[in-house]
């Protein structure tokens, strides 16, 4: 139970630090920030968010609609190929396309050779821009909308649609007046998740030179050495995120009203033929091609023929050990909290879970400076104290792997917790009671019933945390110990040096591991559909 309180405090710490600065501290350069860059950060972040929101809906909803209501060649395969871009961190996609669309790169060289009109070539050259970033982010984030919209379409009782037809509505009228309105909460929730990820993105916008909150925070923190200013920027960002979280919760609540899992009837999909079938195939295949197949092929080509290797294996080892330790810690803490909730149900404990649940919305940059500020101060204090005993000053905590793992815990505890809670909720209390009445003690019930039933959820939680840690860029970048490199950091560094081709092997490694949870996700979605 103490662990649960501790965990909640840990998650709350960075937020409290950041908000505390907002309330109690003044930054010398704050008025300067307000006059010069603040409105640009807000404008760019909002523009990018709106563009990504439009992008993910335009890609995700039609795909989900075609997959759910029509039969065409390749539908089953496409239904899960559409998930693959989830394996890509947006920054890797951005680096890959930048390399691919380079002026002297293969695409533009070919276009010049066939004398393509400039209005086609120009936008491709200008990928490092807000529209470019929006396209990159949309290509990796649309699966949120696709998944939630597809689930909503599948959970709509067929008889509701049939009621629509029987009231004299045509197919498209039913779609617009029944199907879409009923799926709207799910589509909104998926879009909000994508926007949250957009606000949290650092790698893409930094590389594309788009000045948003995340780049602004890092610039203020490192460039201007203005801790208070960075924290104040972070709290404004948190304000936006909090708004999104509230909206998302509201739509999630509506999803429950609109879905009818008890009377889900199998419905006959309309079979498409001829050019309609081809159109559907292309529409569903395009996002996957652009968001996964093409960049992966490019990365593979670069890795095989051009990239200068070096240090990949030691980087991989570093990354895996770090991600392994972090995911075990995160899932261990999440287990303690989940079981504290189960065994000693109390209102304040479920509040703790709610607080933890907000962690997924915290941008990595905010988490990083939120933990760096207090522990950096602690280090200074420690060093000053120890200097009296002749100990060299150094970064005791803020330069350690421990702090990095702490930051990952804050960021990813919600992910692990969500997985475990849903696993645990499937073990209904009556199972525990049955075990007790059949002569088992509390601890025997845990060993003989919970361990075998929870194994899958625990492994899934570990895997998802592992991959998230592996992909996480800004927190790792800010908090890693000196000279400690991971795959993600290496990719970032090489891209920063415009060595995009050399970054390919490490990128491929991240994506290969990132595919594992996507495959797992697809299997669980399938299992849910066949229940």
């Amino acid at each position, binding site marked *: 139970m103490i662990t649960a309180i501790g965990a909640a405090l840990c998650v709350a710490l960075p937020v409290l630090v950041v908000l505390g600065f907002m309330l109690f501290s003044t930054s010398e350069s704050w008025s300067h920030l307000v006059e010069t860059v603040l409105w640009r950060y807000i404008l760019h972040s909002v523009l990018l968010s709106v563009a990504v929101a439009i992008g993910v809906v335009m890609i995700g909803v039609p795909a989900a609609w075609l997959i759910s209501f029509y039969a065409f060649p390749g539908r089953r395969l496409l239904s899960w190929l559409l998930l693959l871009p989830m394996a890509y961190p947006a920054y890797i996609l951005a680096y890959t396309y930048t390399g691919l669309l380079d002026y002297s790169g293969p695409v533009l060289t070919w276009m010049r050779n066939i004398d393509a009109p400039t209005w086609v070539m120009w936008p491709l050259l200008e990928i490092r821009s807000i529209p470019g970033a929006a396209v990159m982010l949309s290509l990796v984030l649309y699966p949120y909308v696709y998944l939630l919209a597809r689930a909503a379409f599948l959970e709509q009782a067929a008889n509701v649609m049939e009621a629509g037809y029987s009231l004299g509505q045509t197919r498209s009228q039913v779609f617009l007046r029944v199907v879409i309105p009923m799926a709207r909460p799910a589509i909104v929730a998926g879009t909000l998740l994508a926007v949250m990820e957009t606000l949290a993105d650092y790698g893409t916008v930094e590389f594309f030179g788009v000045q948003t909150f995340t780049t602004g925070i890092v610039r203020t923190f490192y460039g201007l050495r203005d801790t208070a200013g960075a924290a104040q920027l972070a709290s404004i960002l948190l304000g936006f995120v909090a708004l999104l979280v509230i909206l998302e919760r509201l739509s999630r609540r509506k999803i429950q009203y609109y879905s009818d899992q008890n009377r889900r009837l199998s419905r006959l999909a309309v079979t498409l033929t001829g050019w309609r079938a081809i159109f559907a195939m292309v529409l569903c295949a395009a996002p996957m091609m652009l968001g996964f197949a093409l960049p992966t092929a490019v990365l593979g080509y670069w890795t095989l023929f051009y990239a200068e290797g070096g240090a990949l294996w030691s980087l991989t080892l570093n990354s895996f050990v770090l991600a392994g330790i972090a995911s075990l810690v995160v899932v261990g803490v999440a287990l303690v909290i989940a079981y504290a909730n189960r065994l000693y149900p109390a209102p304040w404990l479920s509040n703790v879970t709610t607080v933890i649940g907000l962690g997924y919305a915290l941008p990595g940059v905010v988490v990083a400076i939120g933990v760096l500020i207090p522990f950096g101060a602690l280090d200074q204090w420690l060093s000053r104290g120890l200097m009296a005993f002749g100990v060299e000053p150094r970064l005791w905590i803020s330069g350690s792997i421990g702090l990095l793992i702490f930051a990952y815990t804050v960021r990813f505890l919600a992910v692990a917790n969500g997985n475990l809670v849903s696993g645990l909720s499937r073990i*209904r209390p*009556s*199972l525990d*009671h*049955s*075990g*007790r*009445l*059949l*002569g*088992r*003690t509390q601890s025997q019930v845990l060993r003989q*019933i919970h361990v*075998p*039933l929870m194994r899958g959820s625990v492994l899934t939680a570990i895997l998802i945390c592992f991959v998230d840690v592996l992909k996480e860029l800004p927190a790792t970048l800010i908090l890693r110990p000196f000279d400690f490199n991971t795959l993600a950091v290496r990719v970032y560094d090489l891209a920063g040096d415009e060595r995009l081709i050399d970054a390919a092997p490490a990128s491929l490694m991240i994506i290969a591991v990132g595919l594992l949870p996507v495959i797992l996700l697809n299997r669980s979605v399938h299992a849910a559909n066949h229940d």
Partner: protein
Amino acid sequence: MPQIMTESVMDALTLRDLTLSYDGDAVVHGVDLALKHRELGCLLGPSGCGKSTLLRAIAGFQALDDGEILLAGETLSTPNAMVLPEHRGVGMVFQDVALFPHLTVSDNIAFGLTDWPKPEARTRISELLDLIGLQGLDARYPHELSGGQQQRVALARAMAPKPKLLLLDEPFSGLDTELRGRLASEVRAILKADGISALLVTHDQREAFDFADRIAVMRAGRIEQFDTAYQIYHEPVSEFVAHFVGPGEVIDASVSGIRSVSSPLGELASDSDFGLPVGCPVHVFLRPDDLIHDDHSPYRGRLIAKHFRGAHHVYEVQLESGVVLGCLAPSHHNHELGENVGLRLELEHLVVFPVKRLCLREDCVNARCTGCPA
């Protein structure tokens, strides 16, 4: 005193003055109940009447505010001490089945048999599989069984360690109506064959009739009546019990003698004394099968609806007082709606309740009488 001792030793389950609360609110108030050995009892009542809380207390998942619970004369729970659930010798079948999804049918049944010698446990399992009629399905997993099969396995699992008492918490409510009725009778037969004492909780009176030897009708945390199904249906002690266990209507009447009342349907005689003074207003409770349509009867009413049931009609007849009564009519008596039709009472036992008003007469002999004429 010695007689009381032998009685409680003979009883399978004894509840004495049991008071329970849920989330801080008292939901069971001073309940007494005794279940005989090998008896199948039922707690019947609307949702929220405290019946499930009562069951959880017997299983040991609920602390007592007051009273005690005894099993075969041994104290299980008092407000100060509770035997742990795993040491009670009480089995339970849950509403949501609660089979262990990671274990096969036979492993589920064997779960409570860890202390048994291997060969005997095996015999017990196959005996139970025979009893529930699922021989050959022992290697299946719960999700490979139908709802009814799952519920029977849950029953076998709970029965396996030969508990002194089996509790069933609305075990059939997740099943469809037809299966529900069949399974209730089936489970009754299985439990009778194994000679086990059991207590079923339900809100469905048909399930209670199919299953139980005696039924305790509960209302707002109290037991109103604990009797056989026949008595509860035909000799209910309160209007609540009368209405809860089956259809029926109430007509106004007044006491006209020691064993008679006068009513819009004539002078009605009872087989026992009311203990109410002459003139005391009462309610007479009538079930549809107590009333028969008779063209020659002097008591008449207007036919306002009729429901064809094949062998007979159910007529709804409105008396002059405005009360609508259900009655049975032979299938070929096809009267038109609005016609004036005759009614005749055919009563085994007259059910009379005092009208619920405060009685002002000091010499009124009935403590429950609430309205003798001044």
